[in-house]
């Protein structure tokens, strides 16, 4: 097998591995609150596309103003979830129709979530391809595996949400752009992929902050040597560079927005107004509650270090250490003039991380999603970790030759790389497996694991997904045949309650009791998903039930994540 085909085979194997791991893992993960919304919207979008293609003739024409508004928009800011671009939701809906309704090969939830798993596999493939092309096969394999073994990223990769996919498409856009610098044919692909990223989540609007300075730097630097000396030489070099590679920015600027509009029928009329409404929604986004270092943050200004500290306590410590080494080695080589930081993409990845995390240093950007909001930056960290690990392995192999002469050459490097890289991957894999299925409660060794994260006052979870963990206990509390139902106060798990029932995870006779005080008053059982600002649910339940004693506490590594109360008998 040639080296090229070996690389392709490994890439394909990594994709298959990623899809398998992600799809298997997500089966244990509860339904996140937002997923329910996206699944519902996705059903509507998918139906609209199928109707538009089939043209069944019932009701208003799908592509009419009324037809589009009926499926994609409306007067309210969140009608048909029009505050989020539609690409992934459309894929969720189509996937559900195909994998569940037509082929019957997946459960409802798995069918909705499958597209995110596919996007995760694409991200792993891009990481692999980029690292192989720029640095080597070992770096590619290690970078891909370390990216796969991120507890939080794998969690998000298993949800019918946008955070995993935008990280994938962000990285894919950068990769295509990077390739376009050496082969023009990649430029239109980069434009299309950026359009898909824009159609996934508004984070993609930050990509120009990484690409533009990189492009300006690269084309200027390359044209500088052949630009006549004189005044404003750099500026003239920039102009010549832009003229030589005009097709790169043109492809991005033209194709990106066109793809966004093409896949989002809501933008097919009143385009400017609808785009303005989309962006305004996020510029004025409500600040949800989020616990960080013991404080419940829900109003700016936020600490400038949220992104840094959260990354430092959620990415596996081995990966962080190797990344620090990789960055250091790469920076030193660049300083000494040996590294091709401009052409290998290293600079681009650094700029990408800056663009992804940068808004969170402002103190005004909503922080409620923590690491998922800057997940696009983390694969760069894993690539740096791969560089650090392989550098350390090569240095060790060179030194070990004196003690073990048979390890001279590629054998020694291979063994050292397997040992060092294997240790890092095994460690990250163990942590990722351990975090499952409550990865949002897990913290790395720097924090001291989940209990250490709790000691630090870091956020316990969000989206209410952990409620699934108490469904078996609630099953033991379900009424027997002929007995009256026992309504459950479910607060933030309420949107998922019907889906749990549909999926057979919730015993009969345990309906959702409703919201707030009225729901508690009607309930016989109540759950509290432990987040700092959800303590108010505990207190409301205590007041109604007359007891502070739960009957069950779900824990992860000893850290409470969901409590269940039962109304005492009168």
């Amino acid at each position: 097998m040639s080296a090229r085909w070996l690389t392709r085979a490994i890439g394909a194997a990594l994709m298959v591995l990623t899809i398998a791991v992600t799809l298997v893992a997500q089966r244990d993960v509860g339904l996140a609150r937002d997923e329910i919304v996206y699944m519902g919207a996705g059903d509507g979008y998918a139906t609209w596309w199928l109707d538009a293609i089939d043209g069944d003739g019932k009701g208003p024409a799908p592509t009419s103003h009324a037809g589009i508004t009926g499926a994609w928009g409306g007067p309210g800011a969140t009608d048909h979830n029009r505050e989020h671009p539609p690409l992934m939701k459309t894929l969720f809906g189509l996937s559900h129709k195909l994998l569940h309704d037509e082929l019957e090969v997946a459960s409802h939830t798995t069918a909705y979530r499958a597209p995110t798993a596919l996007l995760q596999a694409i991200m792993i493939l891009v990481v692999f391809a980029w690292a192989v092309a720029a640095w080597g096969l070992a770096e590619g394999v290690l970078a891909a595996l370390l990216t796969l073994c991120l507890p939080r990223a794998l969690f998000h990769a298993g949800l019918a949400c946008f955070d995993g996919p935008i990280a994938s498409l962000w990285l894919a856009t950068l990769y295509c752009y990077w390739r376009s610098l050496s082969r023009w044919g990649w430029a239109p692909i980069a434009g299309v992929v950026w359009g898909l990223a824009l159609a996934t989540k508004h984070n993609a609007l930050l990509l120009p902050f990484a690409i533009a300075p990189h492009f300006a730097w690269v084309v200027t630097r390359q044209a500088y040597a052949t630009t006549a000396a004189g005044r404003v030489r750099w500026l003239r070099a920039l102009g010549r560079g832009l003229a030589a590679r005009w097709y790169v920015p043109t492809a991005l600027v033209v194709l990106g927005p066109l793809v966004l509009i093409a896949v989002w029928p809501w933008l097919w009329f009143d385009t400017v107004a609808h785009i303005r409404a989309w962006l305004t929604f996020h510029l004025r986004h409500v600040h949800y509650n989020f616990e960080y270092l013991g404080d419940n943050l829900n109003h700016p200004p936020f600490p400038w270090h949220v992104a840094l500290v959260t990354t430092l306590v959620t990415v596996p410590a081995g990966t962080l250490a190797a990344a620090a080494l990789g960055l250091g080695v790469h920076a030193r080589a660049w300083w000494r003039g040996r590294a091709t930081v401009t052409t290998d993409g290293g600079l681009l990845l650094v700029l990408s991380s800056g663009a992804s995390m940068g808004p969170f240093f402002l103190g005004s950007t909503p922080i409620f999603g923590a690491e998922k909001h800057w997940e696009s930056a983390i694969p760069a960290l894993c690539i740096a970790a791969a560089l650090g690990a392989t550098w350390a392995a090569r240095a060790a192999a060179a030194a070990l030759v004196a003690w073990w002469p048979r390890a001279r050459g590629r054998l020694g490097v291979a063994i050292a790389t397997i040992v060092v890289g294997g240790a890092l991957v095994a460690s990250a894999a163990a942590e990722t497996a351990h975090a499952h299925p409550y990865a949002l409660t897990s913290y790395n060794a720097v924090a001291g694991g989940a209990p250490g994260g709790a000691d630090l006052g870091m956020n316990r979870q969000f989206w209410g997904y952990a409620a699934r963990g108490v469904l078996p206990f609630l099953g033991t509390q379900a009424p027997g045949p002929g007995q009256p139902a026992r309504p459950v106060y479910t607060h933030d798990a309420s949107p998922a309650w019907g889906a749990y029932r549909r999926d057979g995870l919730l015993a009969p006779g345990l309906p959702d009791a409703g919201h707030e005080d009225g729901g508690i008053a009607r309930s016989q059982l109540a759950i509290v998903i432990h987040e700092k600002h959800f303590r108010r649910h505990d207190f409301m339940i205590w007041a109604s039930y007359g007891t502070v004693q739960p009957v069950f506490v779900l824990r992860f590594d000893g850290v409470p994540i969901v409590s269940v109360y039962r109304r005492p008998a009168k």
Partner: protein
Amino acid sequence: MTPQLSRLVRVAPALALVVIAAWSARRVVGAGAAVPDDAAWAEAAAEVRAAQRPGELIVFAPGWIEPVGRLHLGDRIPVDAAGRLDAARFPVIWELSVRGARAAETRGLVASHTATYRGVTVRRFDQVARTVVTDFAPLLGRAVVAGPKSGGPSLVLAEVGFEPHRCAQLTPAADQAVTLTFADVELGTELAIGVGLADVFTRRDVRDPGELAVAVDGFEVARLRVGVDDGWVRHVAVTRPGRGTVTFTARAVGLRATGRLICFAAEARQ
């Protein structure tokens, strides 16, 4: 640098990465072992159950372990005790803690008894308890209420600073004050007051402070201003024992202070 040392230096990064990887996995995967399990809690709870008398307070530390503590001893914690103004009226405080944490209620106290059950530490603290001669919040029905308001007063178990507090809750109109007058009530040597802004969402959306002024027989003994991040603010004023009139004046400070949920409790103590 000797060749031997040079080789060691070149091997060190690889060795360090392997060691860090091993430490990292072990620390994360084994983290749960550092948190006592239900069996340990059951043993600790058994001791408390045998020794605790009615009127003695049970607290847990750190705060995040509290649901587990309540799972094992919640039947020994009345709702009113959980929503206490403070711990001064309890002659004995039982603290159950893990991972070396301490509860705020026992700060400055010396444990008279300590025992550890596989990671759960039980400490008993004895203190000179204050006797409550008048608890104002449950007497709301007797108060004369005056002033523009959009809600209350009502006796509630409210979330203030993410802690439970049984309190009188009212919502003065923006930039307006509401007075609650309790006439002819028994007073002790001190008047303990706790006040804060209830409801995390209101605190997020309305950022202006609230204020509580307290007067005894027309003389102001306390004026407490509470902001959205101040939590539960306590104050103890000296009073003359006997009967008197106590007036609480709650104000939503500022024209933007709409829906300001001011929550207060007060106890006349001996």
